[in-house]
């Protein structure tokens, strides 16, 4: 066959002939069995008139072309619903999927197959999912204009397709997900902010299904980026156990903001379920009013004794690697845990290991009490061009840090 591509719009209604060239019926649907092969069309479902559908296995096909499908084995079994099948028309066509490469939610308008010769059979491989105007045109004229004419005409419209390997199918029934071997590998590889954008575009059921199944760490990163209103509804829809796992992975201040915006029963349930250290920190943070320094601050920071040296600091950083990503200041405290200084991280590189950190501290120490108003805090960031601002309690004990990204989210929400 000259053209090795076949569109779903062409496959549907294609006549199926047996060994003697007699017409058995027309193609009604095609199915993939992802557990066996995620790309190959495994079954063709054939219907004729009013009788029940028949199933054609891929290895029973001799040839596939626009003129029809010719079989090489005509012992066909009646179709019965198979839970391991992903039916292209029923489960894919007109439904939403995630384009992991283009990072958006799209709707399937058509599917492009490739016809491949394999031994004595010709098989169909799923190549692309089509979403653009070209596929809309094909769908509209499907069955009205002969396929060969359609092929000539549609070349004028630019194509818009997504490679099958970048398609992430949405399925909210967990049992079915397993049977259809739907993984979230593609989603887990995305940037959390992109994943968050996608999640915002989905329906609540689909959001729930994604968060229920992806790795908790990825889920936590993505959840932090999601619009606050949606955040709460996602977390509320999850099993408490899974919700707790995700919250554990979040930064304590973000976790506290999120839980603070939820109904108390639910947030209490999630807190109960949490296991690790952040639990108590989140609890403490929840006590503060949202629009005060206490409500904005994070409890993940590095504080060393005022007698510590540069070498001590570097040693500490080595063991608390997970903090490094957003770290730009080291705080100095005295024996009563009172704040005495702040050392910009970059200064560590310019001094010998034996230099006391005290000597490197910033000239002016700026701090705020936990009950400081949000407006005043943002003002300070602007005035002193801060990256991090320490927060102290009434005894001047260091209790948390507000970072520039906290300020950005506050400003964005206005």
């Amino acid at each position: 066959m000259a053209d090795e591509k076949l569109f779903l719009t062409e496959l549907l209604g294609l006549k199926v002939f047996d060994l003697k060239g007699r017409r058995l019926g027309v193609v009604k649907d095609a199915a993939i069995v992802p557990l066996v092969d995620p790309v190959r069309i495994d079954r063709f479902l054939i219907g004729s008139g009013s009788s029940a559908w028949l199933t054609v296995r891929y290895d029973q096909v001799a040839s596939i072309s626009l003129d029809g499908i010719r079989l090489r084995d005509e012992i066909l079994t009646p179709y019965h619903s198979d839970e391991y099948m992903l039916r292209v028309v029923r489960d894919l066509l007109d439904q939403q999927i995630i384009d992991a490469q283009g990072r958006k939610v799209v709707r399937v308008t058509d599917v492009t197959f490739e016809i491949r010769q394999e031994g004595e059979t010709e098989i169909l491989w799923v190549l692309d999912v089509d979403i653009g105007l070209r596929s809309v045109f094909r769908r509209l004229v499907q069955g009205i204009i002969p396929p060969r004419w359609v092929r000539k005409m549609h070349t004028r419209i630019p194509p818009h397709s997504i490679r099958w390997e970048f398609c992430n199918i949405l399925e909210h029934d967990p049992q079915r997900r397993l049977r259809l071997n739907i993984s979230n590998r593609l989603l887990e590889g995305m940037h959390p902010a992109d994943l968050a954008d996608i999640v915002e575009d989905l329906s609540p059921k689909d959001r729930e299904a994604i968060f229920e199944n992806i790795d908790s760490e990825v889920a936590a990163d993505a959840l932090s980026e999601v619009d606050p209103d949606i955040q709460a509804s996602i977390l509320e829809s999850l099993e408490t156990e899974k919700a707790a796992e995700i919250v554990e992975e979040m930064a304590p201040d973000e976790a506290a903001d999120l839980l603070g915006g939820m109904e108390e029963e639910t947030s209490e349930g999630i807190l109960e379920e949490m296991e690790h250290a952040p639990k108590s920190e989140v609890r403490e943070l929840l006590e503060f009013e949202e629009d005060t320094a206490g409500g904005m601050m994070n409890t993940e920071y590095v504080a060393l004794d005022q007698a510590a040296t540069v070498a001590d600091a570097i040693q500490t950083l080595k063991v608390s690697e997970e903090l490094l990503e957003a770290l730009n200041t080291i705080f100095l405290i005295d024996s009563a845990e009172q704040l005495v200084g702040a050392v910009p991280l970059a200064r560590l590189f310019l001094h010998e290991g034996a230099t006391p950190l005290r000597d490197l501290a910033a000239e002016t120490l700026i701090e705020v009490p936990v009950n400081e108003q949000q407006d005043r805090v943002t003002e300070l960031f602007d005035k002193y061009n801060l990256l991090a601002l320490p927060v102290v309690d009434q005894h001047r004990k260091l209790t948390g840090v507000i970072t520039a990204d906290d300020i950005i989210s506050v400003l964005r929400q206005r």
Partner: protein
Amino acid sequence: MWKRFKYHILIFFAVIGPGFITAVVDNDAGGIFTYSAAGAKYGYLPLWTLLPITVLLIVTQEMCSRMGAVTGKGLSDLIREEFGLRTTFILMAILVFANLTNMIADFAGIASSLELFGISRYLSVPLGAAAVWLLVVKGDYRSVEKIFLFACVVYIAYIISGILVRPNWKEAAIYSVKPVLMLEGGYITMLIGMVGTSIAPWMQFYLQAAVVEKGVTEKEYKESRIEVIVGCIVMSITAFFIIVACAGAIYSVAPRDIKDAADAALGLKPFGQYAYLLFAAGLFNASLFAACILPLSTAYSVCEGMGFESGVNKRFREAPIFYWLFTLLIVVGGAIVLLPNFQLVKMILLSQVINGILLPFILIFMTLLINKPKIMREWTNPRFYNAIAWTSVALMIGLTLALVALSVRDMLGSSAFLLLHRG
């Protein structure tokens, strides 16, 4: 206890918007004209229809908002998923055309209301169109919704102008609950017109999309439903005062047919400058408001149904079809109003016909969709409610089709000057 109550109040204010805005925008230029005409010609007699209209409106709007809350998907998304691309395409094509005619009616409302203030339509329409485009494209959703909610408040203008006219409240009260049927062509036509204009296809798409956009889920649905119901009632109250104002000012002096909504405003002039100005300002507000909502809602519905990129937060290059559709509706809608011999009445008739042809399909699809357990799970219509729903849908369809027939008759009629009313 208090805490739970407070939570519900908070949720209520969080979900406020969609139902209110939809119901209020329903009283756009076309709606105001219909109610004014009814009051001017028949006085207080038509008031009783508002009660059944409210019920019909609540039933249909409630189904839409429930679908939005439960599925988290727009109406055109659901139609596409369940009824396929070709059906969706045809519905969307008619929707675009119907909404274009609605846009024209609304730009005509902007033009005629501002002409009462002495502003030429060649100035008001282009400026209005530019304002609409900028507001929706450049404004962010939250602030735009606030502006919309403020626009809802401006509808109080009608209530005040209704009071200023000093209508006969006793009669108004009696006829609000006392059905009067007259076997007179003009009267029946008017009743059909009132019901027919009270529900438009775009409302279903807009409401469901707005509920989804607002992030309302099953949990907050209770509050959302209250909001939808309150919105429908507010819409009826506004309609009540429009009818009463025209009844008090025009009918009680001399019953007559009015030319357009601006003509109704002029009729209020003898009853004080304020009544007149408020009525005109209300018309301007309603028209501009609807002109903002319609193109946006159309572009969203079409793009979502057809699977094209959509959203004002996307760049032009990312969502070209969305922006083109949106812009064209505004530009073409505005331009047609400025044509030298533009005939508003014919346009309103055309708009009623197209809306009327589309509506039955939308209502039937809606009722079919809401009864699918696959989509709605335990939120499908209960049996008794389904009976009400199908009856309402059938009633709406019947009356709308009657309106279509009458409009077609008037359009074909040589002296199609007086819309629906030739007593």
